């Protein structure tokens, strides 16, 4: 047995205006799950505590709650001392019980075709990754689009795709998915990462539905424009000024001994819109012994097209990018755009290793910059934190140069074609991000994704900087303190 002190959100609609946290200390067996703790409190301390559960074995999806802000199944999650248990983000009926019914009822049922035949093995295999949902609604609880639009939610889309693949179903699943908010998904991947059944809803349902929607003429006009631009120019951003690729030589040598050689994949945004951030990154790499090869024939990675279901020229883009780096014998390709990084890592099959700049700089050890006397917060790019699992490395770098004040990791609303296709939704999510930034009381916002940096700038009065720009400022301060003339 062990004693645990935990906090639980309590709310009785008959007596309370808002929910409040209450602290309980209970004894439970070693290895106890959150559900065991709830039972122990209910049975020994407070029989009025309300929570929902049924199978207690991770199969019925009744007991999803937030533990320390993350949705989990209470029956599977190990109970830890000091944890905070709250209801998932749906209307609360009492304590930890939320109103699941409207969301569950919105999940489509199979509409049988006449004279249906059994699915073929290939069809069953295609359905398989989408069929294990237990409808716990953890995905709905973390979905940013659900918060600000009428999107029915990730699992509703999962079910539409699952039915679209089933020959026994007669519904028009693509039209229904579009009606129910298919294009509001920001591709933030939060739904997938909290799913207790690990169902890859963004890639296996939403992008697939969008691809079918594309063949039916449902693609949003702005997304079609982006696809036309990529087809015509190889880039998803229009040419306005001298590009990064035009400014830099084919090879950038470091100042000191070479620790590593990488090929650099710049991406459309840093090549055309935030050129200075990419130039700052090159300077940081030079100071840290990284030799950078920059093939000029590289083109858009295809992410804006894959996320919006426009697959017609994807294989051409992939082939050109892979051949461009492979032909120079490059074995490691460096990305600094979170979107390009996740695409090269997850949507490509590359004959070379792909590494993000935060991974690279922490792996080879960073020349210590001077500390800047400012406070900063860090915005986790979805395609870096969830797409590539990179959460600690940027923080490790940032803490070397400024004081870091954390804020919750939520989507800024710029991804998945939402900024171009649904600007009102993107603005609503951006504004929510702006409020979180304000709460931290920091001087600057740091991120590591051009889309996030560009979008958040519109929703905060604080400067938004790329992580390498801040590191470079730390180096410039170091040079100033030492009296070293700046390198030109």
């Amino acid at each position, binding site marked *: 047995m062990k004693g645990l002190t935990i906090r639980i959100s309590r709310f009785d609609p008959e007596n309370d205006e808002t929910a409040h946290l209450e602290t309980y200390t209970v004894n439970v067996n070693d290895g106890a799950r959150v559900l065991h703790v709830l039972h122990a409190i209910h049975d020994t301390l407070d029989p*009025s505590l*309300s929570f*929902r559960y049924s199978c207690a074995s991770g*199969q*019925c999806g*009744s007991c999803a709650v937030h533990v320390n802000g993350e949705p989990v199944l209470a029956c599977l999650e190990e109970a830890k001392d000091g944890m905070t248990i709250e209801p998932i983000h749906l209307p609360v009926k009492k304590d930890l019980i939320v*109103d699941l019914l409207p969301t569950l009822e919105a999940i489509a049922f199979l509409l049988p075709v006449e004279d249906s035949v059994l699915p073929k093995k290939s069809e069953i295999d295609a359905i398989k990754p989408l069929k294990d949902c237990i409808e716990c609604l953890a995905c709905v609880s973390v979905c940013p689009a659900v918060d600000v639009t009428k999107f029915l939610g990730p699992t509703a889309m999962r079910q539409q795709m699952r039915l679209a693949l089933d020959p026994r179903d007669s519904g028009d699943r693509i039209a229904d998915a579009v009606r129910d908010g298919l294009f509001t998904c920001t591709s933030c991947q939060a739904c997938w990462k909290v799913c207790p059944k690990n169902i890859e809803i963004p890639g296996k349902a939403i992008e697939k539905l969008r691809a079918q929607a594309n063949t039916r003429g449902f693609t949003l006009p702005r997304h079609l424009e982006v696809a036309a631009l990529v087809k015509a120019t190889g880039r998803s951003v229009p040419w306005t000024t001298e590009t990064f690729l035009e400014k830099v030589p084919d090879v950038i040598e470091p100042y000191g001994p070479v620790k590593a050689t990488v090929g650099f994949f710049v991406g459309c945004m840093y090549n055309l819109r935030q050129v200075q951030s990419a130039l700052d990154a090159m300077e940081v790499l030079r100071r840290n012994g990284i030799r950078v090869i920059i093939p000029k024939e590289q083109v858009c990675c295809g992410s804006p097209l894959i996320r919006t279901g426009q697959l017609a020229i994807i294989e051409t883009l992939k082939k050109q990018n892979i051949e461009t780096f492979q032909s120079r014998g490059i074995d490691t390709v460096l990305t600094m755009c979170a979107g390009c990084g996740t695409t090269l890592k997850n949507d490509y099959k590359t004959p070379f290793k792909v590494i993000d700049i935060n991974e690279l700089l922490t792996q080879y050890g960073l020349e210590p910059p001077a500390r800047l006397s400012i406070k900063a917060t860090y915005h986790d790019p979805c395609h870096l934190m969830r797409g590539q699992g990179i959460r600690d490395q940027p923080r490790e770098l940032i803490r070397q140069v400024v004081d870091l004040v954390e804020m919750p990791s939520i989507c800024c609303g710029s991804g998945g074609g939402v900024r171009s296709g649904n600007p009102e939704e993107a603005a609503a999510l951006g504004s929510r991000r702006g409020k979180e930034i304000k709460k931290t009381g920091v001087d600057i916002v740091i991120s590591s994704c051009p889309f996030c940096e560009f979008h958040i700038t519109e929703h905060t009065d604080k400067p938004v900087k790329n992580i390498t720009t801040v590191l470079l400022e730390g180096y410039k301060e170091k040079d100033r303190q030492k009296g070293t003339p700046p390198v030109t």
Partner: protein
Amino acid sequence: MMLTDDVVDCHVVDCHVLVTGSGGEGIRAVIESSQYGDTVLVSKTIVGKGGCTTIAEGGYNAVMREAGA
């Protein structure tokens, strides 16, 4: 039959038949008994979500003959 998801603390409901459990057996019992009188079903989760029936992987136990009931 009316389905609700109401959280009820202290509420007296009169009925002729009380069924506990919303798996296949409970639901079938409610369907049958509701034809003859007021029936209340009590479930610890939403009807259709809980019980063994929805998570059974193809195996069901059922009474096939009266002698087995």
